[in-house]
């Protein structure tokens, strides 16, 4: 019963890799999105700098969250007992 | 344990179908009632675009030629082409030829031919492609209408890219 628990089968491993990449894809797309919008607002000359800062603050937090999640995933997998 | 690749055959097939569908989203082909030869009219008859597409220089819309335009030359056969015969027949019957538009602008775009052709001195081929070299009627937009193209050209010529210029 407890045989597959630490060494997941192919499908589950795939899902796990998929979920990690998903969060990173999200973070990267959010970053490109915000940067794209910043360049757009530069082009249109229509944003006050303060509003740009509000949006820029978001980026490191997103990255941090993805980092934490990756740290947890990899940390747990690495630290599991080998049998 | 059975070893399989990262993707099975089914997945590959599925991906291929999706990609195929994406690639084949070609637009509907537009056919004309008569296989008009632009090249002959421009090079041999020495016509200009605006001779038939009147309005391009002086009006907002350029137009498709009416039968009266064709009549000036094609009241009788000039050559031996079957297609020309159709024109002559239409001329004698005084019927309009039901040309199909290739370029239609969406309703929310204001585009003035006069402004671009006469004031801006932009050659027709910039927006319509090398139509004058065509021996068969085009079945799609040689240069597709894209807002990006409009804006690029406006940028290069330092014309206002204000939205209100084209969208009212």
């Amino acid at each position, binding site marked *: 019963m407890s045989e597959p628990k630490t060494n997941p089968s192919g499908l589950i491993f795939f899902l796990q890799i998929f979920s990690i990449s998903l969060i990173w894809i999200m973070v990267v797309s959010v970053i490109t999105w915000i940067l794209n919008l910043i360049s757009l607002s530069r082009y249109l000359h229509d944003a006050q700098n303060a509003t740009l800062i509000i949006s820029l603050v978001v980026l490191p937090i997103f990255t941090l969250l993805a980092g934490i999640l990756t740290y947890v995933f990899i940390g747990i997998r690495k630290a599991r007992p080998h049998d | 344990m059975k070893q399989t690749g990262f993707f099975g055959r089914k997945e590959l097939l599925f991906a291929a179908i999706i990609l195929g569908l994406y690639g084949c989203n070609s637009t509907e082909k537009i056919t004309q009632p008569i296989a008009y030869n632009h090249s002959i009219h421009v090079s041999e008859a020495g016509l200009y675009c605006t001779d038939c597409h009147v309005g391009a220089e002086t009006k907002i819309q350029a137009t498709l030629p009416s039968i009266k335009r064709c009549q000036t030359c094609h009241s009788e056969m000039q050559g031996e082409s079957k297609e020309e015969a159709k024109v002559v027949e239409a001329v004698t019957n005084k019927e309009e030829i039901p040309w199909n538009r290739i370029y239609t602008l969406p*309703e929310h775009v*204001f585009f003035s031919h006069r402004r671009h052709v006469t004031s801006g001195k932009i050659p027709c081929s910039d927006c319509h492609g090398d139509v004058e070299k065509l021996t068969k009627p085009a079945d799609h937009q040689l240069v597709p209408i894209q807002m990006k193209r409009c804006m690029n050209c406006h940028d290069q010529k330092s014309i206002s890219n*204000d*939205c209100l210029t084209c969208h*009212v």
Partner: protein
Amino acid sequence: MTKWGMVIDLNKCTGCGACVNACRIENNIPNVGEEEAQKGRALDWMQIVTEYEGEYPDVRVTHIPRPCFQCDNPPCTKVCPVHATFLNEEGLVGQVYYRCIGCRFCMAACPYSAKKFNYFEPDIPESYEGIRNPDVTRRMKGVVEKCSFCHHRLSLAKDLARFENRELREEDFQPACVESCPADAMTFGDLENPDHRVATLIHSSRAFRLDEELGTDPKVYYLKKEDK
């Protein structure tokens, strides 16, 4: 730089509503029907706001025709999330219907209630097709619309002036409401061009703007109503 503006003389305005109707026809403004109008969803771009002062029988009525004020510091364009409404170089506040996502933030932000929302697919009857203005986009359901100072007329006027190789004259570009005003209460032109009548009228001692203290800097001036 041109800066289009309007001056409305409240002394002359009789509140007849010609401007409202001219605007409707010029800009393909659909008739929403009685039921919808009762719900407060009429789409008129030009609206006549009536102010009452005093008690009966000494009531003073002021009719204030209210187009979009085309503010120089527009509160509506700041909040638009998709650049559907914006201030252009000539000081006109544009509204692009095909970009608008219908969040109605600009309507909430506009202190003058100048923006209108298409709650239903605008219904223009077949019989209207012949008199529909082809230069003005037909709106679709779910977008915000507003007065554009008849910008399509400006486009055509500029086009014609360039075609005829001359400068744009004051009378070349007049919005439909100004053109139709039977009392001659409305004047339109370039606020920064001393040759235009509006440029002098705005320095009149009677000139004022609505809610000027908001700092929106409207380009529609009014001439105060005075007792004669």
